């Protein structure tokens, strides 16, 4: 015959063990879920970093492309200015301005004094 006290003690003991098991399994599952969450966060962070790098490369690509376009535009402008200079410095045009607008004439040899040669 088990006394009532003993039965009560046994019940308490069993209950305690059960609670202890539950606690142990809860702590294990917390660990697992923490690990899973960490992995998920890490994956997302990696993905975000990868995405950021891609976008950054794209952005740099656009910037380079735009700089090259600008460079090309400036080169074109430079070329146009050179062509304009070449057209404006055509000897026929200069002579026409010198003779007709400025009233200049070609000097005779007697009018030429060579200081250095």
């Amino acid at each position, binding site marked *: 015959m088990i006394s009532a006290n003993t039965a009560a003690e046994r019940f308490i003991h069993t209950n305690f063990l059960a609670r202890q098991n*539950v606690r142990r*399994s*809860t702590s294990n*599952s917390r660990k*697992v*879920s923490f690990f*899973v969450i960490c*992995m*998920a966060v890490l994956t997302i962070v990696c993905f975000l970093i990868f995405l950021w790098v891609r976008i950054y490369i*794209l952005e740099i*690509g*656009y910037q*380079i*492309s735009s700089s*090259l376009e600008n*460079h*090309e535009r400036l*080169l*074109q402008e430079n*070329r*146009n200015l*050179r*062509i304009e200079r*070449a*057209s404006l*410095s*055509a*000897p*026929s045009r200069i*002579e026409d301005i010198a003779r007709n607008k400025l009233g200049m004439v*070609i*000097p*005779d*040899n*007697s009018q*030429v004094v*060579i200081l250095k*040669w």
Partner: protein
Amino acid sequence: MKLKSRTELKKNIRFIGLFFIVAFFIMASRAYFLQMLTSSQLSKRIQNQYKSRISFTPRRGTIYDRNAMELAVSVDVQSLFARPHLVKDAKSVAKKLSSVLETSQTEILKKLTRKKSFVWIKRKLTPLQAEKITLLKIDGLGFVKETQRFYPNKELAGQVIGFAGIDNQGLEGLELEYDSILKGKQRELHVDRDALGRYLFIEGITSDQIQGHDIVLTIDKNIQYIAERELQAAVSISQAKSAIAVVMEPWTGEVLALAIVPLFNPNQFSESKPEIWRNRAVTDAFEPGSTFKTFLVASALEEGITEPKDIFFCENGSYRVANKTIHDLHPHGWLTVARILKYSSNIGISKISRHLGKELFYQYIRKFGFGEETGIQFPIEASGFVPLPYRLSEHTQSAIGFGQGISVTPLQLACAYSAIANGGLLMRPYFVKKIIDSKGMTVQENVPFILHRVVSEKTTLTVKKILKSVVSKGGTGEKAAVAGFTVAGKTGTSQKIENSKERYSSKKTVASFVGFAPADSPRITILVIIDEPQRMTYGGEIAAPTFSRMSRLILNYLHVAPDSTLQKIYKEWQETKIISSRVEELG
């Protein structure tokens, strides 16, 4: 209750864990599939989507004069194309375009209704036309950027530079000769594109890096202009058919100017006749006339057959050789060799020629560079005609002495006179000084090249002295004199052959003068040829004064001190020296 919920939680966690494991497995297997099994196919697909190949037609290189002034450049222009299937209401589009492009409406409509996916409407539009069409905002039309050749100095050196066609291919002159160098090589570049097809990065290449090489000529733009302007004036005064001038640097063979009148504008080459495009100083040969006498005298002096003071009887203007009569313009009696050249006596020359002998004369003619190409870099070059000695009759031998029965190119003649100017060395003439790449680095450089010695320096000094007398008072080239400078040269007047009658024309002549200045230390050799002058038909009347004007301006431009100035300075220096020595003597 609590226990139940915990068990469920546990289940859920396991389920999520399992989900992640399965998802990871799927991802890993997919990644394996993509990376290992289909990677090559996929990378090709992605390359097609995000990478593109652009074919770059290089910009045609620039042609510069010797002072790096642009003579031929490439200008960016827009060309208009249409995709006929995308054009709505072709009739109204044709009407709009015809008013802007100044082309007939039916012609445009014909293009717009063609069953093709791409048609050119008009290539190389003006900037204004392109702007107007852009503002019209017509569907199915588009622009392609192209380059067009532009010659900023218009007619200047047109026959030397030549021109390029609509597809930027060289068609004439140096543009044709150096076509492959100027055109450059077609390049294909890989570029990244975004989802909208915009280019992200073009390997850092700019249009300046994709271009043909540039060419620097020996031509001086200002000297060329002087030569062309003076030639035009001579043609106008003498009512001549055409004229040629060659200006050379005698010590190096560099061609400073090569002018041919009538001029043509390479920007609108189709508006002038093809025969005007030709560089006749290189491609055409003519009978040199009396300018050739110099070479006979030089040969005879070199061989020691005659001396400048030897005298010949000039038969008072008429001399019969092998049943043919040789005439002088003015009758002369006894003349020294120097005077034969000064007065340009045909009879005197024919007598010297007989003394020299045809074999020797032939050898010297060839040594002076006649009868073969000079080797100048040009698409076509004539070699002229020198008859072989065994084919020469007594009369022809005499005639060659005064420049008949032989043909030379103007460039050959200028080179031969340069040989006398520089002390007897025949130089190879050249137009191109150097070829440079887009970074300005020299790819190829032409340097003066001595072909061979023709005559000794002593002979050239004697010939120079005689040629100076030609330009002195009483000489045929009197009008070639340049105030302040000593000039050496020779006039020439040759009759042209009438093709229909195969005999010399009494009306058609070629008047010429070739010489160098300053005579004792030559800086330039100039040849002036006036073809078929109607007035002032002799070389001494029209070519010599043209030479004089040209020389004066060119020598001034080159900052060459007049001989008179030098003499004055030398005299002053000597006087100062005498005074200072006397001062020293006096203590």
